[in-house]
């Protein structure tokens, strides 16, 4: 075991982690621990764009953007945070441009902007061009630009280091962050990083679903690490299902495809969205479109012999337009489906896409241990966190924005804190939990296999807590997850070595997924209403009287060692917008 000492430690080198690192490195001695090489992070997969009311191409302002964000999130958004998001969006796009990001340009050389679902002028009057973009690879350009600036600032990275535990020490009755424990992939060595401030920026957890746009590595390690140490997770029942994933594979085809005129069709060739959203049609909000697709499938109008998908039809669009505006996604169709989008419709189905919930923070990125108390020295930003600017449903282009605005804020806040704070003493035997976990798995002889449990988990999540949920389906999932958690104790791996043991890490990642899946299902079971991405067929309406509040899930351990989940609730911060019915 090695011990390192840094002022600030950042967990993750995606958009949020690197945006934080650029600020923190200027102000404090900073280390970034990341399980992937920074440029491999999933921010690079984002296609569509980043929202900011620059008003470069038409009238716009940040107040309209705030409203759209609150409404898009079905009023579960904390409005003070949404206001900061929309207001600071403008500088955060300009900052990226100054760092070198090659945005697409308008004829007069300013940053070009385009339309995206849910972004409107003057509180829903008409669509507005608010998304700043670089072809259909905006996330790639953000990730590259931030890495380039990390190189420029001399940010210190520990690549292929997996953070597996959060260290907390109680000082005078106050829980403080003391550092993290990491596992080095190359050598199998365990490292303790003592730090005055720790920032989690470790991304999402979509891999508990089978059909997902998320990378294999998005396994919720950060959420699981703090949750296991008794800190809450907020709004985990809210997960976004993007309407257009490639059938069975889940690879995302951006909303921009419908923005350019693409149409969804069922097996009869019918443009079915006209029935469900007469005004916005194919461009209605993501939760609405995903539900409509599944309604078609359930009512027998799905395509293919198993009737399990619908078509995204781009065949009426001129090939030049597809080449210029959607080069990457049309190539995905050719590469993975052998389909020529000029002439053939693309089979699609909703794909698990984005975790709205996560580690609760305030607007400075400080992590909360209950509804109001800050954990000194602990921060989170990006998809791992819940500020909450996305509420029950995130608007497209608001996440690339979130990682930049709140990544920057967390980086500054953490470094300023570590400039004055003292190191907190490490707990006794700080690496114990991770050492035991690793040793147990290396020596395990049980008959259960990671791949089998993961497959069953993903299948039950897709079947029971995806786009449609009922008490019955969620209970089925909770039970199944319980069973899988039991079986997980009996899991063994084949690779017993120290060097690049990805077999071992996949087993650990599965443990994280199981913990988080259970939190998600239990939170969903208790929310007896439908709001944004959480749709209960047995409670199809939003219930502001009983559920206009955030879920806070805590892990409890009884005296006999039994684990359970305790749910509590936190009020939503409302400033100027009263809840209204959400129509598009």
């Amino acid at each position: 075991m090695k011990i390192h000492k840094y002022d600030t430690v950042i967990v993750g080198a995606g958009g949020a982690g690197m945006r934080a690192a650029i600020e923190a490195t200027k102000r404090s001695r900073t280390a970034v621990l990341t399980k992937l090489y920074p440029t491999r992070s999933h921010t690079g997969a984002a296609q569509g764009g980043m929202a900011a009311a620059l008003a470069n191409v038409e009238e716009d302002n940040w107040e309209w953007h705030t409203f759209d964000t609150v409404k898009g999130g079905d009023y579960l958004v904390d409005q003070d945070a949404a206001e900061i998001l929309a207001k600071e969006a403008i500088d955060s796009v300009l900052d990226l441009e100054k760092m070198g990001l090659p945005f697409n340009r308008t004829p007069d050389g300013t940053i070009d902007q385009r339309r995206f679902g849910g972004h409107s002028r003057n509180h829903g009057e008409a669509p507005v061009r608010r998304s700043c973009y670089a072809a259909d690879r905006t996330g790639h350009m953000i990730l590259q630009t931030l890495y380039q600036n990390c190189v420029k600032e001399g940010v210190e990275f520990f690549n292929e280091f997996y953070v597996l535990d959060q260290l907390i020490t109680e000082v005078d009755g106050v829980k403080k962050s003391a550092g993290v424990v990491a596992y080095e992939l190359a050598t199998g060595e365990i490292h303790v990083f003592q730090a005055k401030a720790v920032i989690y920026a470790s991304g999402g957890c979509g891999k508990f679903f089978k059909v997902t746009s998320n990378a294999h590595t998005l396994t919720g390690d950060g959420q699981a690490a703090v949750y296991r140490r008794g800190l809450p997770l907020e709004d985990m029942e809210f997960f976004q299902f993007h309407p257009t994933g490639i059938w069975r594979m889940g690879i995302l085809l951006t909303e921009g495809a419908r923005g350019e005129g693409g149409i969804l069709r069922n097996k009869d060739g019918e443009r079915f969205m006209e029935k469900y959203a007469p005004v916005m049609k194919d461009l209605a909000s993501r939760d609405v479109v995903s539900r409509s697709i599944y309604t078609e499938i359930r009512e027998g109008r799905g395509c293919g012999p198993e009737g399990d998908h619908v078509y995204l039809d781009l065949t009426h669009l001129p090939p030049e337009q597809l080449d210029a505006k959607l080069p990457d996604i049309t190539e995905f169709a050719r590469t993975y489906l052998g389909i020529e989008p000029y002439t053939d419709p693309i089979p699609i189905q909703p794909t698990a896409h984005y975790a709205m919930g996560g580690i609760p923070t305030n607007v400075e990125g400080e992590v909360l241990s209950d509804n109001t108390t800050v954990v000194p020295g602990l921060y989170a930003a990006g998809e791992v966190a819940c500020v909450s600017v996305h509420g029950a449903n995130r608007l497209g282009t608001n996440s690339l924005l979130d990682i930049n605005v709140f990544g920057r804020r967390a980086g500054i806040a953490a470094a300023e804190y570590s400039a004055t704070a003292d190191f907190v003493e490490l707990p006794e035997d700080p690496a114990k939990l991770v050492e035991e976990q690793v040793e147990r798995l290396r020596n395990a002889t049980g008959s259960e296999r990671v791949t089998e449990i993961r497959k069953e988990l993903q299948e039950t999540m897709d079947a029971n807590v995806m786009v449609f949920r009922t008490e019955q389906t969620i209970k089925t999932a909770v039970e199944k997850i319980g069973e899988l958690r039991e079986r997980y104790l009996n899991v063994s791996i084949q690779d017993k070595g120290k060097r690049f043991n990805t077999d071992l890490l996949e087993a650990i990642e599965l443990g994280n997924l199981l913990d988080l899946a259970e939190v998600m299902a239990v939170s969903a079971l208790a929310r007896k209403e439908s709001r944004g991405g959480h749709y209960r067929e047995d409670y199809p309406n939003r219930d502001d009287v009983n559920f206009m509040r955030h879920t806070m899930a805590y892990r409890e351990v009884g005296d006999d060692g039994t684990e359970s989940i305790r749910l509590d609730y936190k009020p939503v911060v409302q400033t100027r917008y009263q809840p209204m019915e959400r129509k598009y």
Partner: protein
Amino acid sequence: MATPTLEKADEAGAPEPGFADSPYITVTFRIRRFNPEVSEEASWQDFQLEIDPKERVLDALHKIKWELDGSLTFRRSCAHGICGSDAMRINGRNRLACKTLIKDINPEKPITVEAIKGLTVMKDLVVDMEPFFQAYRDVMPFLITTGNEPTRERRQSAEDRERFDDTTKCILCAACTSSCPVFWNDGQYFGPAAIVNAHRFIFDSRDEGGEQRLEILNDKDGVWRCRTTFNCSEACPRGIEVTKAIQEVKRALITRRF
């Protein structure tokens, strides 16, 4: 343990437009194994799979790892050609495993899979990427400007933006650099990927560091080592015209115009 044959039933999809009705086939994957914890020697190992040829080579590697041999080691993340993790030598050519469908690489014969060349193999298909990223960092891959920062964005015409569009697509997968015979012979050569990323800034109208970068690439280990074999352009999974970018940098060095 589930066998590959059992999986068939639930994954055998329906024929889709654009596909011939393709049944599962038996494919042999011949993989170059190396694990110094076990043996100092590398060796080939064969795995037979029943697999849908429309699947990716990455899917096959996962099937092997998850169902046959958990110790098989490779990097991967996004699984759709965007993160640059899984460049490897497949049937003697550098490709991304996640962007290569089995049916496209002659599955009747054993498919060989080995680590990319020119970088030290750490285990199986995993190589030491540090020298590759060091070369990238050495060309100062960030916007360099002087003078006061403007209040709003820097202006750039659509044409000026188009000038370096191709080289902004790079995902740093190393497929190009590790297919370059010059790099194989001499790891000191910057390699195509670093030059591509220098190009991305040299030809960016907002950048003022072109001269510095050109000086770096004028070095004995710089662009002049390139012998225009086009391996890099053929290897690039992002379709970047790598050789053309290198030629443009050479020309800029001669004319000092960019």
